[in-house]
């Protein structure tokens, strides 16, 4: 697992209070990990903070699974 993927999953475990094993690439934040709309906003904010970037709202709306988040951040992260 890439360094970015590890950090992304750590944030998800922390914010959503889920088990690490549940945080698979295919897992959907809302359908599989119990996130509501406020949780997903918080996750995006945490990603921005952790990776020192700003994720535009229209991009954020397309990030709905763990794998999509990792892919987006691997492409855009500045760290």
């Amino acid at each position, binding site marked *: 697992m890439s360094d970015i993927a590890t950090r992304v999953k750590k944030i998800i475990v922390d914010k959503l*209070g889920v088990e690490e094993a549940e945080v698979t690439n295919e897992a959907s934040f809302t359908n599989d990990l119990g996130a509501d709309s*406020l949780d997903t906003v918080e996750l995006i*904010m945490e990603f921005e*903070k952790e990776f020192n970037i700003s994720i535009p709202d229209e991009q954020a709306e397309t990030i709905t699974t763990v794998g999509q988040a990792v892919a987006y951040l691997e492409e855009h992260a500045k760290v």
Partner: protein
Amino acid sequence: MQLKRVVVTGIGALTPIGNNLQEYWNALINGVSGADFITQFDASKFKTRFACELKNFDPLNYLDRKEVKRIDRFTQTAIISSDQAVIDAGINKDNVNVDRVGVVFASGIGGLITFQEEVVNFAKGDGTPRFNPFFIPKMILDIAAGHISMRHGFRGPNFAVVSACASSTNAIMDAFNLIRLGKADIILTGGAESVISEAGVGGFNAMKALSERNDDPKTASRPYDKERDGFVMGEGSGVLVVEELEHALRRGAKIYCEIAGCGATADAHHITAPHPEGLGAKNVMNVALEDAGMKPGDIDYINTHGTSTPLGDIAEVKAIMDVFGEQAFKVNISSTKSMTGHCLGAAGVVEAIACIQSVVHDIVPPTINHFTDDPELDSRLNFTFDKAQQRTVRAALSNTFGFGGHNACVIVKKYEA
């Protein structure tokens, strides 16, 4: 329309001197002080470095990690004490009509700690707004009532009540009125407060409202002592399950007491100072007695607002002398804030619980920390100094007053069929 009778059938308490009803009552009648040095933040530069904090309180013992992060401390205490009260009352969503079970819940300030954290966080940044999406729903004062209803599935009337340090007495009054008017079968009511933070302590310090007795925190809350120098901030939560009498009898509920009457008035005088003659306080006791259909001679115990401030204690006692006349020398008076500190928006319910237990057990909890008589107070008054006193307590009256000049009073009495 015949008003219905209202009884208390469940109690929850999370206080600086006990984390449930039994612990709280034992501490009250044994004269335990809840004051100590502040642990929740570094208070070394503050004029007041002590408070009555909750002890051995870990929200993770009651709530999961995700809940703890998205729920402010005041709401955490509200949820925990309401769980206790619901269990004590033996109610759940399957044995009551959930559409007729409400939550009327108070706080004086709400999520000040959350507000402080979020604003400090923003101020440290470069101006880019990065507010947490849970900021507002975590901070707002009414969210405690919302969380309690969600946790238990109670769908009746649901709202918050605010009148600063009178808040939870006003909440009890609203709950009492809803039930006696037949608008609900059961209401969970009470209040919660937790503002022992830089903003909370700093704000009250700036008003010179807090005791600064840093060399002896445990004796700092000393209502009616000549050397009193301000209140000691407390925190916590209390919950009453108030229920329509026939409903309680039908389900065989344990009945602690009956709520006899309530009152609410304003000083219309000053934002923070009490009326010097205790006018609003006098009126509120008269209104409550009239509502209860009682005379001063029917009251055996007055749990005062008695915050340990120089002006407030005097004004309230003047009001008691006016309302009770000669009877003032026959009642027991005490300020349990000498032990719990001033739990602000939760004070009313925490003290109503002291009154209820007093009526149940025929014991009056003391005013601790008495060292020097105040010559301005009539020495014939019985302030129940230092030791609990046993006596028959047919009825007890609880006063609470809030910044803004709000006064609220509730009277509880022994339940008789």
